[in-house]
C-alpha cells in the first residue's frame, strides 16, 4: 500500500541558507501535518493543512512557511536556517472524518544545518 512520501530524505545546508521539504500524502488523504523532532526530543507539531487551507498552527518559527497544493502534496519552506533547525522533519497524513484518529507518518527528512 502507498505510504506517505517525503523528500529529500537527507539534506545538509549551511546557516542562513534556505531549504524546502516535500510531502506526498497517502492517496485520498486530505489532511497533512508537519512535525519537527530534534535529537532526543519528542515530535513537536508545526502546522497542518486540510483541503489546501491551513487548519492549525503550532510552534512553527516565522522563518518557516508551508502550503498544501491542489494535488494535496505539501511543502515546508525554511529560510535563514539556524543550527537549531537541525532535526528530523516528519510529515503525516490522514483522511478527515475517517474516525480512526490515525495519522500515517512518512519516514522523515533529516535536515542538518552546518
Amino acid at each position: 500500500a502507498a505510504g506517505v512520501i517525503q523528500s529529500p530524505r537527507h539534506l545538509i545546508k549551511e546557516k542562513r541558507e534556505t531549504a524546502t521539504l516535500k510531502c506526498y500524502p497517502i492517496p485520498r488523504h486530505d489532511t497533512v501535518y508537519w512535525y519537527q523532532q530534534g535529537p532526543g526530543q519528542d515530535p513537536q507539531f508545526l502546522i497542518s493543512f486540510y483541503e489546501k487551507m491551513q487548519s492549525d498552527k503550532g510552534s512553527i518559527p516565522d522563518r518557516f512557511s508551508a502550503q498544501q497544493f491542489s494535488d494535496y502534496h505539501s511543502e515546508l519552506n525554511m529560510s535563514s536556517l539556524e543550527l537549531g533547525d537541525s532535526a528530523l522533519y516528519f510529515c503525516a497524513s490522514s483522511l478527515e472524518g475517517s474516525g480512526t484518529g490515525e495519522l500515517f507518518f512518512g519516514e522523515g527528512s533529516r535536515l542538518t544545518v552546518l
Partner: protein
Amino acid sequence: EDKVVQSPLSLVVHEGDTVTLNCSYEVTNFRSLLWYKQEKKAPTFLFMLTSSGIEKKSGRLSSILDKKELFSILNITATQTGDSAIYLCAGEANAGGTSYGKLTFGQGTILTVHP
C-alpha cells in the same frame, strides 16, 4: 499550554517480562490519547483511546485511558526483542467539528528488551 508526560523515560527488561508504560496529559479540549511506536523510522500507530475504562488490545499490547485522572497506560506482555523501540504517547485536542486537532507528544519511553 498542553503537556504530555511519559514515564519511565527508559526501561530495560529481558524477553518474556511484562512492562507498563505511563502517560499523563494536560490537554485543553481533549479528544483522544494516541500511542505510537517509533523505531528507526517514522512513528507507527498503535492505539487511539477516547473513552475511559475501555481496554484496547492488539496481540500482546493493550492500553487503557482514565479521563478522570488524566492518564493512560500501555502494557506489553511477554516482551520480545522486536518490541525494543521508543513508545510515544500523544494527546489530541479537539479542533472543532470533525477536524483532527494537533497532537502534543510526550518525550517517549525508550524500551530495550534483551534476549
